[in-house]
């Protein structure tokens, strides 16, 4: 029984990465209509950015938590301005393909310069150690990750769903020309949104640097799972992807306990089931 609590908690921790990543994907999909295949690569860049800050500029974890997402976010905005911009109005497919290409390039370049086994990054001193909760040993850093990502997720949700911005963004996805004709600078808004989504990915990257090896491949396989999370939650649904992110972490955690061999597949099985029953995802808007 105690072991089960432990698994639930661990699942929740994992879920916070899913939530952050799928949130970024959902923001980008919901607003730009782009399936951002480069998300995994940008997540990886976030982690690398933290590493560079530490090793080249001697800037530690805490500032990196802000600097890295901003830096990678700016990089994302440049990508949007120079490349993705040209795809407005085209089918989803092209966005998917372009970002897929970008992912290959970014990953390839990092691979060439930093090898495949990756680089070390350790837990900041303030968050070292752990607490014995009775049923499990909880590393403090993990606790921090859950709390922090929950806060970030809710802030993002508030920004997009509870301010006018959200309505603008959703409308702009459907008919950017008309929204622009209402007096809204749609291109700038889209650039900033992409920056936001990318920044969230980078943030997840920084958070994961102390627990996962900082490797060029670190995002490549994760991204497919995160896609599944977004689809289950309902593409473009902000709250949906947050909740599904956490929930899937937990479900995966339980699977790891009861039938670990299936823990990688469970999310895909769920996705197929959900889509068959509710095609727009659990909380997706009908369209």
């Amino acid at each position: 029984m105690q072991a089960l609590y432990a698994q639930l908690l661990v699942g929740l921790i994992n879920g916070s990465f899913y939530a952050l990543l799928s949130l970024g994907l959902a923001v980008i999909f919901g607003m730009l209509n782009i399936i951002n295949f480069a998300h995994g690569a940008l997540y990886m860049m976030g982690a690398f950015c933290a590493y560079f800050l530490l090793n080249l500029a001697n800037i530690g974890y805490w500032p990196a938590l802000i600097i890295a997402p901003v830096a990678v976010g700016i990089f994302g905005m440049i990508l949007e301005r120079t490349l993705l911009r040209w795809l407005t109005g085209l089918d989803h497919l092209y966005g998917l393909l372009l970002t897929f290409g970008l992912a290959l390039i970014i990953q390839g370049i990092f691979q060439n310069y930093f090898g495949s086994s990756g680089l070390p990054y350790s837990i900041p001193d303030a968050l070292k150690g752990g607490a014995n909760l009775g049923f499990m040993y909880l590393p403090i850093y993990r606790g921090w990750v859950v709390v922090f990502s929950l806060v970030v997720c809710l802030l993002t949700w508030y920004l997009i769903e509870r301010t006018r911005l959200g309505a603008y963004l959703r409308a702009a996805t459907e008919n950017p020309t008309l929204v622009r004709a209402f007096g809204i600078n749609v291109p700038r808004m889209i650039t900033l949104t992409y920056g936001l989504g990318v920044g969230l990915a980078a943030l997840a990257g920084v958070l994961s640097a102390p627990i996962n090896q900082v490797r060029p491949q670190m995002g490549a396989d994760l991204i497919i799972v995160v896609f599944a999370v977004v689809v289950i939650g309902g593409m473009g649904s902000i709250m949906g992807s947050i909740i599904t992110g956490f929930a899937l972490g937990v479900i995966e955690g339980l699977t790891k306990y009861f039938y670990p061999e299936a823990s990688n597949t469970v999310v895909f099985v769920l996705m197929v089931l959900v889509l068959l029953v509710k095609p727009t995802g659990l909380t997706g808007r009908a369209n």
Partner: protein
Amino acid sequence: MTVTTDNIIPVAARTVRDEMIAFGIMTVLLLIVPFTGIYPFFVMQALCFALLACAFNLLIGYGGLLSFGHAMFLGTAGYVSGHALKVWGLPPELGIVVGTLAAAGLAVITGLIAIRRQGIYFAMITLALSQLLYFIYLQTPFTHGEDGIQGIPQGYMFGFLNLSNPTVLYYVVLAGFLLGFLLIFRTINSPFGEVLKSIRENEPRAISLGYKTDHYKLLAFILSGTLAGFAGALKVFVAQNASLTDVHWTMSGEIVLMTLVGGLGTIFGPVVGAFVIIAMEQYLAGFGQWVTVIQGVVFVICVLAFRRGIVGEVAHFFRLSL
């Protein structure tokens, strides 16, 4: 009249004549390959992928359905054929049949699930299904995990064609490719193809005209999956192994890349695309680390600048229908 390119694939008014001439040229070129000194295994490999990409193109280019899991048919047919040849000792022709049938069966099952959704959801479901299958193949014993099925015997087709002879093998693969290609070509230019196009254009309208669109999409999916499987079964004889890479999602991505590079929705595009990508893999192998980066750059350039793909741009420039 120019066609605005805001749809995935502009359906140009086709003239079958251009296509026939191009087909003739392609066939002749392929027939003389063994006499040119071009390394036949490269061409064989490319032909298998070309057929695969054509099958994929049938679905996206004419049915408007982007499958991001087509590798599952390639891999399934490969494993089943490989197993049948090596373990059951079936003759090559039966090995191909068994592999292709396995892919067809898989296409029926996955198709029934996938075609119920459209657009991006369709892509995601196919991706999910193929990932599921990937993990299954990773764990089931008959696929031998990451080692794959190795040293698959080539044998004698119909009892007398010695497939270990590269020239014989080449013509067998070529025959298989042409067979598959012609079937796809015919499908596209068939009454069924017309209905498929109209469904892609406006599905509710097609329903209101009395078309059970799901049946058409399912048939297209099965045709495409079966042909992809056929390509996978042929490939077993060329590579003599069947491995996990053929079921991995990056392979599905590569199929998309080939089709895109050659030209989505053009008949010959996937063939050209497959040759280009396979050539890149083969001849850039010496560039080592940069292969993936170069692939990525090709992807990006295609999407941004040559959206019609190589064949599409050529056809557009000369106002041909290819």
